[in-house]
């Protein structure tokens, strides 16, 4: 890459960071109450919330990691990346219930909803908060690592300097404006991702001539080698399943689709919507924007397969470089938008999980432990924790590579295993008891940790099914079974107003 290109990419990306900061700065005047600062409760319309939800869901892994997986193992992962219908499904399942809970009582966090549903059961709140906190830190660290290393590699800076510049600004505006700035900046970053996606998709078609040409190349290229790096091609590689065990494809369909309704970045946005009757529009905006970003990841993988198969670039030594190989081949305009998209994806997801983890420490855990803190003090405490967690995460993610990789296992599935019993079962079924949900959470926490240890020691799960599927199933099963033998927070013990939400 030329120096001129590097300067332009840096300026372009810097522009995006500055605009994000200005949005965050402007938003701080709106974050006047705890409900607004922590939850943006009932504040935004469907367009803003839709783009924000999509941007927080589509992490840097979606833009960088997924094309690499598709390049190396074929189409099975498209079930995950093309899961755009999941937003409408999530809102149909839980949208009105979550939004309605914000009318029942003060709702500024997921912990507040848990309190309302389970009569302030502190153990449910504590356990759910711990699991979500672990998942949040895992997401946060991986976004910081991805964004910092990307720009350190580009500019020849130390990753620590790149990390503190990019994520230092993010920490500042997030601390100032809380979730109000979080939602607005994520919507802006989502918009950048969509623009980048449209440009990359057009570039793919003009470069390859379409998917038929890629299939022809895959069918005829055979074995392409460069030194010790070998890439095998055949037409079957581009069928629906690729070369992964097909049970993995099954998982990659089920977990992202049903898991979307259990992701904090989707759940918290449900109560950020001003008018619940706009939920279908929210689904439309989130799905359409997700379609563009999801398809971008697919065309990047197909583009690189085309280039390698035709011998225009050598086979990739590291599949995670697929998006850079594609952008480098296309030239400066693609590089500009690819880097901006990756930065936008990492910033939007990082800011979401930074506020979430700080809110758990400053608000949810103290209240679960019976420590009463005034709303203004909660906001001040959260600002401090955003700085502390943010700075520690930068240092941790850039100095403990192995730990980040280990923590990275706690992601989507871990969050889903904690939220599914509490919110999905709890708000759809009035007989879900507090004891049942608590048991499900205990099982989730223990099995997440045990599974991680087994996974790291090389244990192979039956059918190559990812371990989090077993954990999710176990936590749901235990929640439902224990609910049949217990009574807490059901029947007369269930608040009349919450019963109305379940029936709504």
């Amino acid at each position: 890459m030329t120096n001129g290109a590097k300067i332009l990419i840096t300026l372009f990306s810097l522009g995006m960071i500055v605009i994000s900061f200005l949005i965050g700065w402007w938003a701080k005047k709106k974050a006047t109450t705890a409900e607004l600062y922590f939850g943006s409760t009932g504040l935004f319309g469907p367009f803003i919330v839709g783009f924000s939800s999509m941007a927080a869901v589509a992490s840097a892994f979606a833009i960088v990691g997924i094309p690499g997986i598709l390049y190396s193992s074929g189409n099975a992962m498209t079930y995950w990346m093309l899961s755009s219908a999941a937003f409408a499904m999530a809102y149909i399942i839980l949208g009105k219930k979550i939004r309605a809970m914000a009318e029942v009582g003060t709702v500024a966090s997921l912990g507040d909803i848990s309190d309302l549903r389970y009569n302030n059961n502190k153990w449910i709140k504590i356990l759910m908060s711990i699991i979500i906190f672990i998942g949040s830190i895992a997401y946060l660290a991986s976004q910081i690592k991805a964004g910092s290393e990307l720009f350190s590699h580009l500019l020849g800076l130390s990753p620590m300097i790149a990390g503190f510049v990019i994520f230092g600004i993010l920490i500042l505006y997030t601390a100032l404006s809380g979730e109000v700035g979080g939602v607005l900046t994520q919507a802006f970053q989502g918009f950048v991702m969509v623009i980048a996606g449209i440009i990359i998709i057009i570039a793919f078609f003009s470069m390859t001539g379409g998917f038929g040409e890629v299939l022809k190349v895959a069918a005829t290229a055979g074995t392409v080698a460069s030194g010790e790096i070998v890439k095998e091609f055949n037409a079957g590689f581009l069928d629906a399943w690729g070369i992964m065990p097909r049970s993995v494809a099954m998982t990659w369909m089920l977990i992202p689709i049903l898991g979307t309704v259990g992701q904090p970045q989707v759940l918290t946005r449900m109560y950020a919507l001003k008018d619940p009757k706009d939920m279908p529009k929210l689904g439309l905006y989130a799905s359409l924007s997700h379609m563009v970003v999801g398809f971008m990841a697919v065309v990047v993988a197909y583009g690189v397969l085309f280039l390698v198969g035709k011998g225009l670039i050598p086979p990739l030594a590291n599949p995670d470089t697929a998006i850079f190989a594609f952008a480098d081949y296309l030239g400066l305009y693609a590089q500009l938008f690819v880097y901006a998209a990756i930065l936008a994806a990492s910033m939007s997801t990082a800011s979401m999980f930074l506020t979430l983890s700080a809110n758990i420490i400053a608000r949810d855990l103290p209240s679960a432990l019976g420590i009463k803190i005034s709303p203004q003090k909660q906001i001040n405490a959260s600002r401090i924790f955003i700085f502390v967690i943010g700075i520690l995460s930068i240092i941790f993610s850039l100095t403990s590579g192995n730990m980040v990789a280990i923590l990275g296992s706690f992601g989507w599935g871990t969050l889903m295993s904690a939220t599914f019993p509490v919110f999905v079962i709890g708000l759809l079924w009035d007989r879900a008891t507090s004891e049942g949900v608590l048991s499900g959470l205990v099982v989730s926490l223990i099995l997440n940790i045990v599974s991680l240890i087994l996974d790291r020691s090389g244990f192979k799960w039956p059918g190559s099914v990812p371990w989090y599927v077993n954990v999710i199933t176990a936590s749901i099963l235990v929640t439902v079974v224990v609910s049949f033998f217990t009574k807490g927070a059901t029947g007369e013990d269930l608040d009349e107003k919450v019963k109305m939400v379940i029936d709504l």
Partner: protein
Amino acid sequence: MKLKGKTTSMVILSTVLWVVITLCGWMGHHIVGMVLGVVLMLIHMMLGASRNGELDKKFFIYPLLPWAVLWTASFILSEYHSNLYGTAMPDFTILGFHPSFAWTVLTYWIGGMLTLTAGFVLYKDLWLSEEDWDNFRNSLQEINQKRGLAK
């Protein structure tokens, strides 16, 4: 469609489905697992879309049922065309895609998204009407007044 009184049965069914789908994954029965996954999602959407224990038939007939048919067909057709051609070049393509993958793009991704999202927008009142929401808020207000609460 009256779901009142059937909610517990539907929750039990969905829990059994989670277990069976996981076992399908363990034993390599991915298509059975995926089709049962569609049933699992359908149950959740039926519960989520019902109002006072009743799911409007229209909402079930569109968008829920066509979505379920599209996805079930998608998985079965993907499997069929994958097994038909193996690693060989297929003798036809759909919009340039391998026919097995074309079903992922056309029915799982675009078809599924458009059916569910457009149906949700078109029939939003069958999911939550203005009247439902106003009634809910009024009832809340009455309860709050009785209890002497602000919210």
